[in-house]
């Protein structure tokens, strides 16, 4: 598990880097002291790796694996998982079933690799039998998942990790900081000179290569939903990668990407996701929320 720490050219802040949740993670700390920056970076990374280990769908030694292999048996989950499942449940209710942590099995039939083809109707119908949070018995802290179903907290895990790390950092240091876990960000306060941080937004057509613009943020969580490179072209028809768990098909006319600023990264992320799920109505939805947002259509 590698950590690197570099000082900015002007010497005013440190940039720590590590890798977690299949993303590059950055911690920007406005501090002079290297030892202190190193300590804070280490703790942030430890907390992030802890969350990754605990909630990753790709591990076989955690509770998520147990749940996904529980074969219809009820399982008691710990308090932190309870809170996350309650949150997922609320998001399911708020989105009228469009945000659904059981929708991950759709990935088995939908591939967005070049040359892939869309699934046929029977495949989709078969798959939908194993989707639907309403089929799950959730009586906190007891979860009973019908056989063949899976849950995936990937849609909230990274934002949750950003907010938990931000929570810990704000309790530990007075320094201004930015957390950037693969495009999910949190800024605690302006720099000591009173200036906001400048955050570059990726051009979704050239992630990491070209910037679509720059925003200034003094405080809050920032999250982006969407990835313009992930779509499927088949017989002249373009299929976006945001899937509707109720139909089993991609949401039509969804923007290429949506970026939202809100109080926390979790909130920003969920608003961006909800907006994508609105398809063509994304902009109208975000305007009604009265949050700063950027849409790339």
């Amino acid at each position, binding site marked *: 598990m590698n950590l690197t720490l570099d000082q900015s050219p002007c010497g005013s802040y440190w940039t720590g880097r590590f890798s977690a949740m299949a993303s590059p993670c950055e911690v920007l700390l406005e*501090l002079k002291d290297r030892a*202190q920056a190193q*300590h804070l970076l280490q703790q942030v990374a430890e907390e992030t790796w802890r969350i990754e280990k605990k909630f990753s769908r790709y591990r076989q030694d955690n509770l998520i694996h147990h749940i996904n292999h529980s074969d219809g048996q009820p399982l008691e989950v710990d*308090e932190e998982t309870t*809170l996350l499942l309650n949150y997922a449940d609320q998001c399911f209710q708020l989105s009228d079933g469009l945000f659904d942590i059981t929708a991950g099995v759709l990935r088995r039939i939908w591939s967005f690799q070049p040359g892939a083809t869309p699934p046929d109707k029977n495949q989709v119908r078969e798959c939908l039998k194993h989707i639907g949070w309403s089929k799950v018995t959730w009586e906190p802290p007891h979860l009973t998942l019908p056989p063949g179903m899976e849950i995936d907290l990937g849609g909230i895990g990274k934002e949750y990790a950003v907010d938990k790390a931000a929570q*810990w950092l704000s309790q530990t240091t007075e320094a201004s900081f930015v957390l950037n876990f693969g495009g999910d960000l949190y800024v605690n306060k302006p720099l000591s000179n009173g200036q906001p941080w400048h955050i570059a937004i990726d051009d979704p057509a050239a992630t990491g290569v070209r910037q679509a613009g720059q925003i200034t943020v003094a405080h809050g969580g920032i999250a982006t939903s969407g990835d313009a490179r992930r779509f499927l072209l088949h017989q002249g028809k373009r299929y976006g990668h945001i899937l509707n768990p109720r139909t089993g098909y991609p949401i039509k006319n969804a923007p290429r990407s949506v970026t939202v600023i809100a109080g926390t990264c979790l909130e920003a992320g969920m608003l961006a996701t909800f907006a994508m799920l609105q398809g063509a109505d994304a902009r109208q939805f975000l305007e009604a929320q009265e949050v700063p947002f950027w849409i790339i259509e």
Partner: protein
Amino acid sequence: MQLNNKSSVRAALAAATCTVLSHPLQAAQSSDGWDVKGGLLYYSEADRVTVIAPAISASKTTEAGDKLTFRAIYDSLTGASPNGATPTNTPQTFTSPSGQSTYTTPAGETPMRDLTDVRIAVGLDWEHELSRLVRNAMSGNFSAERDYLSLSVSDTLSKDYNNRMTTLTAGVGLTLDVVKPEGGAPVGLQLINAPATGELEDDNQKTAVDVLFGVTQILNRSTLTQLNYSHTTSSGYLTEPYKILSVIDPLTGETVPDPSPTAPANTYLYRYEKRPDTRNSDSLYWKLQHQLTEDVIYFSYRYFQDDWGIRSHTMDLKYRYELAGGRYLQPHYRQYQQTAADFYRHSLVDNMPLPEFASADLRLGEMTSNTVGLKFGMPLQDGEFSILVEKMTQTGESHPADAIGIQRNYDLYPTLDATIVQIGYRTVF
């Protein structure tokens, strides 16, 4: 999505987010590494005892959530301690318990016995989660010094209620000590130079049983309070084998010379102390911890009483003042007051009937102690460093009303001034 009510989505989401983030932050230390704490304690009483004690502990949280802690401490003690005899107007010569050596205290001074000892103590704690809301903590301790061995075990169960806002705790502890005084355990209240008439024993045991009940309540986001009650029953050899009492003349207050024709010069009459062989004590402890915007106030009060007649009150106040960059300053004030044990007396009067129990151990006398201190802590790469400096002053009845004759000229409860310096370092391996 509830399209007719879109703007409420954000408010509902913000509330849901707030709840999901309410899960308490995990301890900052990594579960993969060992959390190691090292410390050095320096405790020095003016003109009396100095203790230097390095200590180390290492704890690890296992995958299953169990926490294991190993502790070790090494004490080295040098200096002198009041032997219980009172000052008098001539020099006083004492024979060491083994009879091998003597020491002489000048006229007018409080007699002190030289001490050197080392103590090694090791301990092991195991905290285990029995179920989601129930934890068990077991602890074992062993310590050894030249004339004293101590072994103790304890078990504490805690259960959370009320959305983890309330924790109930119940615990039990057992201690077995073996005292092996130099030259054997003396017979209580016997004259120290007289041939022993009772049986001298090499191994003298004492046992103690503790029970504890506690409740911890989170009052709001920034306030926590705790109330503990504990009861201790001790039995066995509770006497201090090296403490003595002067036998004084009922009129002059002078220490009575040893009448034996073979007695060397400046030898006087003293008796060994004697304490009851049981002690029952009750203690009530209340703590309040409140976080201001950043700073934290800690307040605690303890009431203690036992069937030896000691009642005590301890008030403790700390304020953690946060500085920039994770550094902090923590001023500390503590006040302790106790009444004397029923059998505490500064001396015994010659030719009077002997009491059933008697001790001139200053720790059993009426006293007040005040401690002021300041702690500074700072984060380091992978750890924390702290330094604590404290001054303690303990005062008692220097001129008690029952002092006789020349005793009134002397300080029968000399003030104790102590300096405490503690350096701590914590890191994760």
